[in-house]
C-alpha cells in the first residue's frame, strides 16, 4: 500500500478501533481518526501524521468539512475508509420501540453511508479507493432479539454491494468483514 494516501478510521475509540489504530500508527500511515468519544483527541500525541476529531459521524456537512480540512493539513488525499463505528442492539420485536430501530439504522447504516459519500469524491478523483465496513455475522444469520441489529447489518451489506456496482469503474473497492460477537465486545 502507499503511504501517500490517508486512512480514515471511524469508531477509533472502540475496542477494535483502538487495536486497528495501534497497528496503523505503527505503519506510520497518515490517519484521520473519528469518534464521538473525546479520548480520540489523545491519538494526536502518538505521531504527527495523525489527526483526530470528536463528533457525531451522522453530521454530513461537518464530516465533509473536517475531511477537507484534515486532508489539506496532511497534504495528502484520502484513499482508505475503515468504518468500524456502530452499535449493538438487543430486544424482542415487541419490546423494542420503533425509535430504537431507527437509532440502530441511523448508526449502523446511515452514518456509514454519510462517511462513504464524503470520501468518494477523493477516491473518484484519484481513481483509487478501498473501503472496509466492520459488520457482523448477524448480517448473515438471524436470532431471537436481534431483529434491529440484523436488519441494520444486512442493510450495510446491501449498501456495500451497491457501492461496488456503482464505483468499481473508479478503481474503488468495498468489502464487509462480518465479525462474531467474540471478535468485538466479549
Amino acid at each position, binding site marked *: *500500500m502507499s503511504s501517500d494516501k490517508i*486512512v480514515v478510521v471511524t469508531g477509533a475509540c472502540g*475496542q*477494535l478501533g*483502538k*487495536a*486497528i*489504530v*495501534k*497497528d*496503523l*500508527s*505503527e505503519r506510520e500511515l497518515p490517519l484521520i481518526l473519528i469518534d464521538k468519544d473525546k479520548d480520540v483527541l489523545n491519538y494526536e500525541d*502518538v505521531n504527527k501524521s495523525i489527526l483526530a476529531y470528536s463528533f457525531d459521524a451522522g453530521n454530513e456537512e461537518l464530516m465533509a468539512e473536517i475531511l477537507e480540512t484534515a486532508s489539506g493539513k496532511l497534504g495528502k488525499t484520502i484513499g*482508505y475508509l*475503515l468504518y*468500524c463505528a456502530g452499535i449493538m442492539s438487543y430486544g424482542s420485536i415487541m419490546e423494542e420501540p420503533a425509535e430504537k430501530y431507527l437509532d440502530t439504522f441511523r448508526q449502523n447504516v446511515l452514518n456509514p453511508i454519510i462517511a462513504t459519500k464524503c470520501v468518494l469524491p477523493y477516491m473518484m478523483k484519484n481513481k483509487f479507493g*478501498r473501503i*472496509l465496513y*466492520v*459488520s457482523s*455475522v*448477524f*448480517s*448473515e*444469520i438471524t*436470532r*431471537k*432479539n*436481534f431483529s434491529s441489529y440484523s436488519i441494520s447489518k444486512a442493510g450495510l*451489506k446491501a449498501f*456495500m*454491494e451497491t457501492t*461496488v*456496482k456503482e464505483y*468499481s469503474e473508479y478503481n474503488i*473497492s*468495498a*468489502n*464487509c*468483514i*462480518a*465479525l*462474531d*460477537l*467474540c*471478535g*468485538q465486545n*466479549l
Partner: protein
Amino acid sequence: MMEDKNLVDSYALLPRVFVKVRETARLCISVLLDYEAINGQTIVIDNGYSKMV
C-alpha cells in the same frame, strides 16, 4: 506509540480476548490495505459464539 499495557487495561478483558481483538484488527487492516483482489465480499469470521445466543 500507545503502550500495549494501556491497551490491555482499556479492554479490561482477559489476555486471550485481547489477542483475538488484535488478530481481528490485523485481519481488517490486511483486507483493507493488502488484498487488492477482494471486492464486494462479506468476509465472515464465525467462531460459533453467535450460534449459542
